[in-house]
């Protein structure tokens, strides 16, 4: 790809990227595009079973946020289903997902299925009675066999299970260039990492690469990390209350999380560039300064999909040798080894034989295996064999998840969109003016009050 095309791609990503770690705006691929034939044929069998054993034909309308190579990978997971059942899956991708879905639901013309990282939005629609209970569609047994209780709870309200996880990204990773990075790769605590970073900054080299621009969703990379810090600093119980809007944004725990995030950017020389370049550079270019004769910075915090982005920006680099990650260490001894995740859920708006069949198929371990084999996502299905991860980063991430004390979906994909917008925005404002934290938190608090 020429530089111009790359620039254009980045530009489109600027416009199109919408959400937090639920998905990367564009990405790339790893070498694992060829899916093993046996997993594909197994998927065909599972698909036929999902359709009740016969080629029922017809079509199902799926609305989502994917485009480009991400969509190609998702469609590759769907393909065996279409072949086996004769059902035509019409995927309609939009980056303005919330607005389009809302309009279609209000107009009485919802898609049959939605596959989306905007779990909070689906939860709102579920509260309004617009979403079909998957417990009735799939059955408790299947749900419990396929997913961790935490994942089921995340996609449930008091009455129904409104979604089933389809893909997962692991957040809270520190990506680095092993050729240049001389800090700890297994730091015992956040403080240890900051200690290294501080000494690095004192030598006149910026330890952290931070960039927050993401078009209409700018600020989410900061919000994602603050979100993860809240989880791992104040604990899951607090995090859950917080995401349910039961906690004021001016609470000391939230303030502390912002300040912890601020350690990466506020002290002079910690983050590469200056405040304006942190705010104005696209998140997909965060790691760019790490690679070069004289690296501008050494660590960038991001989810699993960052590996794909680096591969896209620097096709000549070798994964693991030239770029790798370690999990961000614990922020608190009280809550060790917790992980923040993001993901896409399947939600049903219209129950038809076709939409039921596709949902059953996507939840199946066979489809989960294909998802793992795309090399792009982790499968939420706990029956998926960890050897299905051909991609070294995903395989490492799946181990981290398995060994964790618990994984929790980040709150900023679960809160109402108006609060999420304010939260993302606060990431920019705090970066721009850290001394103004009181006022910034009060603004998000006002958005929470409005959303109650």
């Amino acid at each position, binding site marked *: 790809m020429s530089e111009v095309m790359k*620039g254009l791609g980045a*530009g*489109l990503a*600027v*416009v199109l990227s919408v959400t937090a770690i639920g998905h990367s705006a564009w990405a790339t691929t790893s070498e694992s595009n060829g899916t093993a034939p046996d997993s594909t044929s197994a998927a065909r069998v599972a698909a036929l079973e999902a359709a009740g054993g016969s080629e029922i034909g017809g079509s199902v309308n799926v609305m989502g946020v994917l485009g480009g190579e991400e969509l190609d990978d998702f469609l590759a997971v769907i393909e065996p289903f279409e072949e086996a059942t004769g059902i035509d899956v*019409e995927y309609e991708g939009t980056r303005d997902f*919330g*607005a389009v879905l*809302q309009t279609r639901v209000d107009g009485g013309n919802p898609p049959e299925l939605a596959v989306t990282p905007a779990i909070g939005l689906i939860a*709102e629609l579920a509260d309004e009675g617009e979403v079909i209970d998957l417990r009735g569609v799939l059955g408790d047994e299947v749900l419990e066999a396929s997913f961790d209780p935490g994942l089921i709870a995340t996609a449930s309200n008091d009455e129904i299970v409104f979604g089933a996880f389809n893909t997962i990204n692991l957040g809270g990773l520190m990506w680095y260039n092993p050729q240049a990075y001389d800090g700890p790769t297994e730091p015992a605590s956040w403080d240890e990492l900051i200690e290294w970073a501080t000494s690095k900054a004192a030598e006149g080299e910026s330890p952290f690469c931070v960039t927050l621009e993401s*078009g*209409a*969703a*700018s*600020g989410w990379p900061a919000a994602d990390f603050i979100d993860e810090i809240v989880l791992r600093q104040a604990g899951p119980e607090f995090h859950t209350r917080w995401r349910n809007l039961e906690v004021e944004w001016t609470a000391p725990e939230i303030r502390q999380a912002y300040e912890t995030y601020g350690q990466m950017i506020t002290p002079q020389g910690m983050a*590469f*560039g*200056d405040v*304006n*370049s942190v*705010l*104005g*550079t696209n998140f997909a270019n965060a790691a760019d300064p790490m690679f070069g004769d004289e690296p*501008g910075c050494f660590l960038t915090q991001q989810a699993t999909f960052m590996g794909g982005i680096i591969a896209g920006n620097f096709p000549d680099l070798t994964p693991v040798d030239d770029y790798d990650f370690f999990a961000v260490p614990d922020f608190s001894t009280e809550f060790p080894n917790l992980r923040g995740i993001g993901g896409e859920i399947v939600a049903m708006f219209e129950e038809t034989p076709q939409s039921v069949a596709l949902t059953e198929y996507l939840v199946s371990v066979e489809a989960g295996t294909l998802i793992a084999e795309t090399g792009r996502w982790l499968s939420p299905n706990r029956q998926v064999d960890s050897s299905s991860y051909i991609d070294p980063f995903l395989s490492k991430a799946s181990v981290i998840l398995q060994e964790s004390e618990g994984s929790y979906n980040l709150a900023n994909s679960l809160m*109402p*969109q*108006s609060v999420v*917008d304010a939260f993302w*925005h606060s990431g*920019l404002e705090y970066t*721009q003016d850290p001394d103004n934290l009181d006022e910034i938190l009060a603004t998000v608090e006002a*958005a929470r009050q*409005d*959303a109650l």
Partner: protein
Amino acid sequence: MILERFSMLGIAVVAVGASTVLYTNVAARTVRALPTGLARRVRPALWIAPAALVVSVVLIYPAGATVVLSMFDADGGGFVGLRNYTDLLSKPSTLVALRNSLMWVIGLPLLGAVLGLIVAVLTDRVRYGPWVKAALFVPIAVSAVATAVIWRFFYEYKPAGTAQTGTLNELVTRLGVGPVPWLIDGWVNNPALIATAVWTQTGLCAVIFAAALRGVSVDLYEAASLDGASPWHQFRHITLPLIWPTVVVVLTTMAVIALKAFDVIYVMTNGSYDTDVLATLMYKELFSARDDGRSGALATLLMLSVAPIVWFNVRHYRSSLRGMR
């Protein structure tokens, strides 16, 4: 799927055509069958009816419904009177958006018209004129989203001391001024956004002005230069007065475009760093906060602010028609 859409499109075209023919036939026959006195009164009504129907369904009814919604709460359930308006006007973010909308409504028409007029006058009756105008007209054909993406590159900011990838910052760094965060800095970001819109509209303004200039008789300029009028005096006392109606139309059209400004801002900053305008705020209240009341109130404010411009435009158009007679 695509075939399906095409066949639907075909059906739509045929159906609209057929019903138009049918309606005109029936209407004409009806009028003919009526006694003369009655026919004279019924005829205009019959011809206006289809347009009136469409306008009421897609414009008047939604506008009215929006005003009504603006006096109800978020989900349209309870009547709250003018509380949405007072709530909005007491929020700093709304005041910033109002200020920015005002900046747009002054900046875009003024810059667009002045630049368009300069281009039109300078390229009038010269050999390369059409080429210049064509080149300047191209941006209007570029989608607003693409325009915004291009201009983001143009405004790109890199820290001082590193290579500047944005054209504008490369330029100002060479001039010895440090790189400017065009879209972040509170002093320059709104003008920078307006400049993007000016780029898309200047060509349109120039073409409209060029057409108006064609209507000014060459004899007048010849006479004026015989009397010793300088080019500036010719422009000031002949050109400008004669194309004044066009200037007004351009200014008001640009003002309406400025008030509707949304896409450029949505793509380039999404309202960050105090760049929201009424339209982006309305979008956020509607699709992010899902507050029908407040978004209705913002839409109503937007409508009210456009109304005087439209009213002025219509009045001006009428008086210019009268002038022609």
